[in-house]
């Protein structure tokens, strides 16, 4: 479980996150919605260690993890994906996945000479793991394709795959659905649900697609202007006057459904 306590993140005069307290329950898929500029990505960045918060605390299962570096959080099983999918474009999909587990002896030049057997054994394990992930996500047809050549949606699947390589406990997804076609979005949704049900993953996702959220997320947290507006099930949230107002206030059309 992740707990955020009175978190502030200011950029000069901009209070991007302005006193947020909330918690993401273990084993659930929590949705984070809100109009553009609400501070959702910034909140993610602070939790994932990309920004040092101005003040406040982030706790993981009760332990203070505020301000830890991304790779330290990574070691604790916490991972984030990016609003714009990231990949090693000149490596293949399989190689991208195999890059994930940290601290393999093959990365040390000396070990490749003095301990070739151990290096080969680790390499074999990682390859087997990658193959399993590829099968789980049903992307075997592009496994040996350069990641740079994938479509936007496939890259998002690859991001999900990356989290599976280390059996992440908690995964933060920033707009997984953005720019992904319906079919792939369903595949993506299926994969997320299966990871939650079969492997006990905890997800927190920023998302704008209401159908996608309705299908996956419970509870849903709504942010506006750097603060939490309300939270509850998707139906409760949709019926909430404050939420409708917040979306109206941004000049967008009058319902969360209409927000892209």
């Amino acid at each position, binding site marked *: 479980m992740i707990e955020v306590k009175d978190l502030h993140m200011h950029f000069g005069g901009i209070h991007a996150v302005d006193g947020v307290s909330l918690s993401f329950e273990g084993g659930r898929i929590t949705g984070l919605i809100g109009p553009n500029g609400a501070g959702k990505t910034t909140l993610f960045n602070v939790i994932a260690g990309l920004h040092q918060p101005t003040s406040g605390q982030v706790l993981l299962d009760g332990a203070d993890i505020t301000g830890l570096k991304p*790779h330290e959080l990574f070691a604790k099983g916490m991972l984030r994906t990016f609003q714009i999918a990231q990949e*090693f474009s*000149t490596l293949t999909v399989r190689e991208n996945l195999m890059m994930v587990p940290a601290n*393999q002896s093959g*990365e040390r030049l000396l070990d*490749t000479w003095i301990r070739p057997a151990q290096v080969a054994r680790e*390499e074999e394990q990682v390859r087997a793991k990658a193959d399993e992930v590829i099968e789980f996500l049903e992307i075997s047809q592009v496994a040996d394709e350069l990641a740079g050549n994938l479509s936007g949606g496939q890259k998002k699947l690859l991001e999900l795959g990356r989290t599976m390589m280390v059996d992440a406990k908690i995964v933060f997804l920033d707009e997984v659905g953005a720019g992904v076609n319906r079919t792939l979005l369903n595949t993506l949704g299926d994969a997320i649900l299966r990871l939650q049900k079969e492997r006990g993953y905890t997800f927190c996702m920023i998302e704008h697609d209401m159908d996608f959220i309705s299908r996956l997320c419970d509870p849903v947290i709504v942010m506006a202007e750097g603060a939490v507006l309300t939270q509850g099930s998707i139906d409760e949230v949709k019926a909430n006057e404050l939420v409708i107002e917040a979306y109206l206030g941004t000049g967008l059309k009058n319902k969360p459904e209409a927000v892209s």
Partner: protein
Amino acid sequence: MDGALNSFLLLSNFVLVPGMAYGSQLAIGALGVTLVYGILRFSNFAHGDTMAFGTMAVILVTWLLQAWGVSISPLPTALLALPFGILATIVLLLLTDRWVYRFFRREKAAPVVFLIASVGVMFVMNGVVRFIIGPNDQRFADGERFIIKAREFKRLTGMNEGVAFKTSQGLTIVTAVIVVAALFWFLNRTRAGKSMRAYSDNEDLALLSGINPERVVMITWILAAALATIAGTLYGLDKSFKPFTYFQLLLPIFASAIVGGLGNPLGAIAGGFIIAFSEVTVTYAYKKFLAYNLPPDWAPDSLMQLLSTDYKFAVSFVILVLVLLIRPTGIFRGKAI
């Protein structure tokens, strides 16, 4: 017909063979520059003087071996000394990184700051080399000088023109093939190599995936040291060793790396040969060649040389400027600079 064949042999002797050898030397040099650029993201101006340092170390060990009477004739003794030279250069570069570049990395300095730091490093290395071995020409090639001499070639084939093939040229080409094959195997097949490529490709994601940047940087310097020493030694065996010449080599080497696309190893190799052949063909005197191919009374009196060899570096410079104007990312689309 004989004229055509003779003129081909003539070109082989003065353009093809020297161009191949020089191209290989530039390619190995440019690979070092391009790797450092791909990983550390700055143009390392000290690379020419790193080559000089490495070659100097090889020469010193060669002299020692020669004094001990160790020899692998017909191959040059320098080949035996090469691993020791590489080792010395690795130590030098790792110390330089610890004393200079690491500080700027921690400061997250802009690439131009690194570049200027590397100019400083260049002057220091330059001073060290001149202090130890002096500014003069040093010859250290021993063993058999030729694989085949022009005279022998003529005798064997009965042609007018002979093609000479120096041991150093043969050695350069063979070494280049081995070095390039080994480097690409390393980058494409080993995990350490892949983590280097991953780091060069997407630094943020690499950090997030727990790739240790300091280790990647260390491996890069080790490779750069090996490449610089090999390139420098091959050049020295082929021509001669003079510290100032190695400083001058910086221009064609950078031109090669940039023409091919900075940060792209394949580009560095292609660039090396493009620059080498441009230089050799522009500075070659075509008088004899034309004499073979034109009617006798048309034969030119002048040397028919487009550019005196004194100005050969201008060739790299012109190509460099043209590439930067027309296609700054180079042929193989390296990182734009």
